[in-house]
């Protein structure tokens, strides 16, 4: 390569061509432009006229210069000019390429692969043998040097793993290095880990080491968990030299069971901070559905934290003594507990013996004094169970825990309890004191209107203060607790109903229960608990953070699972053993990321190769542009640039700058019709791919729109055709879907859109256009196709339209719904089974919503269709009867659109007399 200043030439000998330029100059100069032959009668007058300047038979100097420049540009272009050429000193000897192959390399894996490919290609040119080693996937007998192209062939098989290389791996590699010197190219993921320095020392002893690191920071998601009622996720980063920001996204299942984004939480790192906590303030309903967290934009296993049982709904057993008091629901001891817990927990009821068998996380005893199964309950508590007890008349009246500490009570109790602020006692009902620091209720605010009028009292003692987590304003304990093994007992000194206090009526009650329930969630199982169990992987994470099926992985012993370190024998993922599910994440719970540091002897490169800028394209482009100018100039000079040609030439010159070697992509945005649809009512039909059906559907909707415009206050604009794959459905209220036998099924994404559309109040009118000849959906090709098309749709149970359906009276009173065919039943959402006939009304009180689909086969669009002049497009029936049928078809269309737009408004009309009557009284 010849290098002149910042420009190098890959084929410098071509530059000798520049020497030929002066010769070319003389040649071009001698040859005048070719003459034009013209027939011209006036030639008789020209005879004998001599040209004035002899000079003009030569090409003008500026044109020559232009051509010279063009030729020079072509020669220089083909000589392969390179801006900022990199002059590499090709190393000698073998080359070892080491990649960490961890999850942290996954994000930049394509670039890492490109870098390895470049290194392999370079080594191939230099004839150096190469070995390629991934630290997470070591070859059994050490690296073996081979020809570069042979190694390059195996490059696609090298993939990052979801774990990190262990110290053992590095020691093994250091031990199995081949004899003799070699250079090393180390593609590092930028994280420091044990064993790395020693391996580096070994490699440096063999030859020069070049490190390649991505400029992007490594970010990972550490353990998630609960902290004071909120869900948290720890975000880690390796380089802490600059402030940074990330966003953590919580994914979970929606009510339909589809995984979607539930929440986002931003995290900002200050300089020097390697760890930040992302906090999600989620309602329990959402919290229970969480499946995983991930850092937005990071596609690595380390940026994903899977949620397991720890975030699931807890089983709460509710045991009450007051059974049999029928009719006094509000006074039942467990009424408020049930109300508070039902939304967030799975409630189990029964006797203590029964509920213990179900393995609940929490047992709540509401006003139960004596428990027979003390041993069983204690054993359950020692395994982590939380026993919550509420006081009450029974407990106060009993002598449980009077003389000595009851095993199922946190403190000793004084006999009788006390009553304050009642009719027969002095004093005011007591309010709550603010929750002390360290209490599980810390941070909750005690409402001033919560008052306690009766309670059981704790026996004073040296450990009472430590056991108390909430007190009344006068210092008497309200809630006490005691740890038992892994679990604990919590006693509320008031009853669980509103007899003794207004606490159960306040929101604080729910929050307190929530706090307690949170603190009872199972933590990571301990090793001894796991020992002897075998866990099977259900789904495992790959290095890119995607969940994969783990069909053929062997079972994993519980002991291995207890170690936090993931590796080839324990890939991160979801593991299950019996009922329990546990998530193993790529980042161990107490892991911190530390940026790797390289000694000064190691050259560190960025992952992005500083690209040499090839100037060939630009130079050739310049030559082409010059030649175009030359073309125009020559034409002008020869007098041929007239009229049209002048225009073309001007266009050529103007367009020239628009063409560049990089190419320009035209972008089109044709969203305008959708914008129009947002502000108007628009009827739309689904494109079937059959041009005739689509045209008739369009004409039909045009006809219906015209009728609506003329007869009702609905004023639709021009109908639209909807491409399910591309268009946003949310702007439409009504879709007409003619079904053809060979229609293509929409993609899964389109079905997602359709389901969302149906859920949010859209309506689809399916029309099989076969007059329903074979009974609904049974044997006609369109019917079968409809079944196939509608299977993935979120459609409620259907029934043939009952005679009192709101569609029969939403604008016109109709009992028949013909289209071009006067077919039989059409199907709508089934009425709820408990629909009743309203008193004195011919209608039942039907469901509150709009039926999301109407299915029939009467080919309505054909009956509605009009041409441009407003005349019917297709015949319907015969004679006047046919026109009547078309009119009824239009009326059905009007009713349908009214139903879509006004919902059950007409249904409500049946209640108007009753409402008026009530108002009058």
């Amino acid at each position, binding site marked *: 390569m010849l290098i002149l200043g910042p420009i190098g030439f890959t084929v410098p000998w071509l530059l000798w061509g520049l020497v030929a330029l002066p010769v070319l100059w003389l040649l071009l100069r001698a040859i005048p432009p070719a003459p034009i*032959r013209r027939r*011209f*009668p006036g030639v*008789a007058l020209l005879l004998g006229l001599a*040209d004035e300047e002899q000079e*003009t*038979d030569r090409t003008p100097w500026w044109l020559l210069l232009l051509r010279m420049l063009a030729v020079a540009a072509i020669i220089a272009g083909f000589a392969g000019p390179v801006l900022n050429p990199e002059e590499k000193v090709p190393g000698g000897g073998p080359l070892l390429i080491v990649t960490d192959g961890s999850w942290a390399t996954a994000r930049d894996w394509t670039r890492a692969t490109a870098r390895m490919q470049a290194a392999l290609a370079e080594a191939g040119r230099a004839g150096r043998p190469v070995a390629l080693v991934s630290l997470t996937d070591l070859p059994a007998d050490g690296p073996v040097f081979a020809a570069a192209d042979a190694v390059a062939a195996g490059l696609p098989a090298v993939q990052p793993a979801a774990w990190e290389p262990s110290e053992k791996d590095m020691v093994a590699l250091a031990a199995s290095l081949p004899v003799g010197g070699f250079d090393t190219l180390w593609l590092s993921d930028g994280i420091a880990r044990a064993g790395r320095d020693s391996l580096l020392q070994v490699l440096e002893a063999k030859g020069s080491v070049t490190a390649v690191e991505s400029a992007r920071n490594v970010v990972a998601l550490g353990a998630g968990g609960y902290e004071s009622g909120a869900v948290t996720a720890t975000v880690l980063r390796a380089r802490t030299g600059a402030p940074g920001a990330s966003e953590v996204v919580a994914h979970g299942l929606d009510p339909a069971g589809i995984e979607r984004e539930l929440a986002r939480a931003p995290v900002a790192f200050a300089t020097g901070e390697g760890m930040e906590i992302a906090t999600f303030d989620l309602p329990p309903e959402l919290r229970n559905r969480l499946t995983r967290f991930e850092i937005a934009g990071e596609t690595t296993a380390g940026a994903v934290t899977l949620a397991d049982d720890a975030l699931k709904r807890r089983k709460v057993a509710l045991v009450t003594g007051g059974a049999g008091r029928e009719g006094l629901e509000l006074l039942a001891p467990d009424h408020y507990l049930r109300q508070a817990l039902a939304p967030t927990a799975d409630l189990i009821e029964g006797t203590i013996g029964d509920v213990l068998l179900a393995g609940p996380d929490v047992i709540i005893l509401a006003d139960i004094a004596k428990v027979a199964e003390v041993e069983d309950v204690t054993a359950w508590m020692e395994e982590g169970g939380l026993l919550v007890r509420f006081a009450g008349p029974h407990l106060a009246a009993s002598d449980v825990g009077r003389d000595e500490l009851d095993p199922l009570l946190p403190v000793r109790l004084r006999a009788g309890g006390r009553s304050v602020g009642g009719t027969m006692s002095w004093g005011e009902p007591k309010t709550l004191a603010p929750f002390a620091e360290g209490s599980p209720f810390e941070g909750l605010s005690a409402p001033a209107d919560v008052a306690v009028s009766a309670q059981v009292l704790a026996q004073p003692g040296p450990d009472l203060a430590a056991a108390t987590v909430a007190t009344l304003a006068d210092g008497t304990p309200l809630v006490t607790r005691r740890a038992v093994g892994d679990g604990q007992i919590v006693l509320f000194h008031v009853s669980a109903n509103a007899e003794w206090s207004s606490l159960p009526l306040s929101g604080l009650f729910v929050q307190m229960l929530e706090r307690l329930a949170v603190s009872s969630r199972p933590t990571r199982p301990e090793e001894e608990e796991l020992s002897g169990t075998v866990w099977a992987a259900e789904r495992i994470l790959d290095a890119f953070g995607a969940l994969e099926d783990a069909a053929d992985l062997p079972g994993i012993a519980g002991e291995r699972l207890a170690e936090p370190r993931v590796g080839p024998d324990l890939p991160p993922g979801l593991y299950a053993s019996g009922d329990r599910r546990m998530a193993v994440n790529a980042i161990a719970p107490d892991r911190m990321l530390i940026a790797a540091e390289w000694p000064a002897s190691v050259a560190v490169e960025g992952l992005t190769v500083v690209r040499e800028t090839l100037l060939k394209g630009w130079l050739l482009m310049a030559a082409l542009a010059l030649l175009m100018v030359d073309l125009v100039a020559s034409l002008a000079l020869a007098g041929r640039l007239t009229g049209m040609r002048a225009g073309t030439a001007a266009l050529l010159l103007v367009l020239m700058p628009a063409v560049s070697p990089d190419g320009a992509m035209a972008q089109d945005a044709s969203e305008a019709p959708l914008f129009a649809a947002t502000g108007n009512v628009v009827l739309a039909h689904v494109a079937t791919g059959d041009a005739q059906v689509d045209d008739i559907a369009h004409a039909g909707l045009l006809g219906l729109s015209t009728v609506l415009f003329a007869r009702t206050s609905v004023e639709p604009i021009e109908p639209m055709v909807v491409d399910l794959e591309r268009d946003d459905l949310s702007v439409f209220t009504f879709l007409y879907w003619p079904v053809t036998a060979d229609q293509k099924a929409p993609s899964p994404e389109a079905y997602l859109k359709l389901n969302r559309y149906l859920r949010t109040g859209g309506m689809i009118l399916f029309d099989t256009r076969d007059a329903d000849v074979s009974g609904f959906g049974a044997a006609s090709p369109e019917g079968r196709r409809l079944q196939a098309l509608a299977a993935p749709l979120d459609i409620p149970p259907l029934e043939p339209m009952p005679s009192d359906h709101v569609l029969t009276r939403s604008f016109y009173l109709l009992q028949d719904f013909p289209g071009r065919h006067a077919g039989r039943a059409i199907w709508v959402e089934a009425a709820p089974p408990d629909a009743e006939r309203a008193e004195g009304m011919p209608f039942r009180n039907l469901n509150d919503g709009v039926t999301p689909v109407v299915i029939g086969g009467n080919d309505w669009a054909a009956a509605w269709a009009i041409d441009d002049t407003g005349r019917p497009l297709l015949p319907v029936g015969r004679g006047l009867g046919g026109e009547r049928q078309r009119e009824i078809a239009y009326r059905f269309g009007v009713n349908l659109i009214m139903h879509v737009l006004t919902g059950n408004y007409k249904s409500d009309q049946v209640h108007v007399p009753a409402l008026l009557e009530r108002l009058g009284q």
Partner: protein
Amino acid sequence: MSETGQMSARPAGLRRNAEALAATLPPLLADARHLAATVQLGEHGRRLSGMGDEFWQYRPAHAGDEARLIDWRRSGRADAQFVREKEWQAAQSVHLWVDDARSMEFTGDAKRQSKADRARLLALALAVLLIRAGERVGLADPVAPPRSGEVQLLRLAQAFTREAGSADFGAPEARAILPGARAVFLSDYLGDPAEVEKALGRAADKGVTGVLMQILDPVEEAFPFDGRTIFESMAGTLRHETRKAGDLRDRYRARLAERKDRLAALAREAGWLFTTHHTGDPAQGALLWLYAALRKDG
């Protein structure tokens, strides 16, 4: 018709010729009639008393008038005798010569009529007007001597649709022109001016007066050429090469003006009228000029 006899001599070509004739004649004739219709004219009176059908004036009878000339109805209303005079309606013979040389086929723009087409159109339209006025119209060559009547129009039209000559530049034909008749010469006069001079001289000898109309394409007037060019005459007999056509423009136009001056001088000397018509202009003006010019000195 008259051409039937001519064509029956070649029965094989009868049908083909008839069709070719029918294809070209009606448009040319129709165009000519259309053009002529734009000139609003009455009977072509001579504004002199003489032989004719139309009343001209009553004049008092004077000695020498024959008694049968006296208009008794007019004289009865007065004491003097009046003679009823009629307008002189002597028919004139007009000879048309349309240059059919190759140079006339030139047009500077595909959308523009060629000079030959324009010349024929003008000539035929003029013939329509003259025949409508009762004059006798014919060609300058012996093929079609002057006659009056509608049939002569067909004959003229057929003569105009003959194949063009092969010469590069044409020269006026004056042999067949009747003495004392009028003549109209339509050409571009780019050929040798001596020929024109000769023809004019011969015509003047016979007491023929008339009109010279030079028909030029706007391109021939403007010379909008540039660059290295080889100019060739339409038949290719003449050629001239230049390196820089633009430089010749002024000199060409000077020569053209000189040619026009010479023609005008010639016409003046012979008592003729001369004008230049460009095919870029509408034909109407040229027709009116021609018609007026023929009337003026009649």
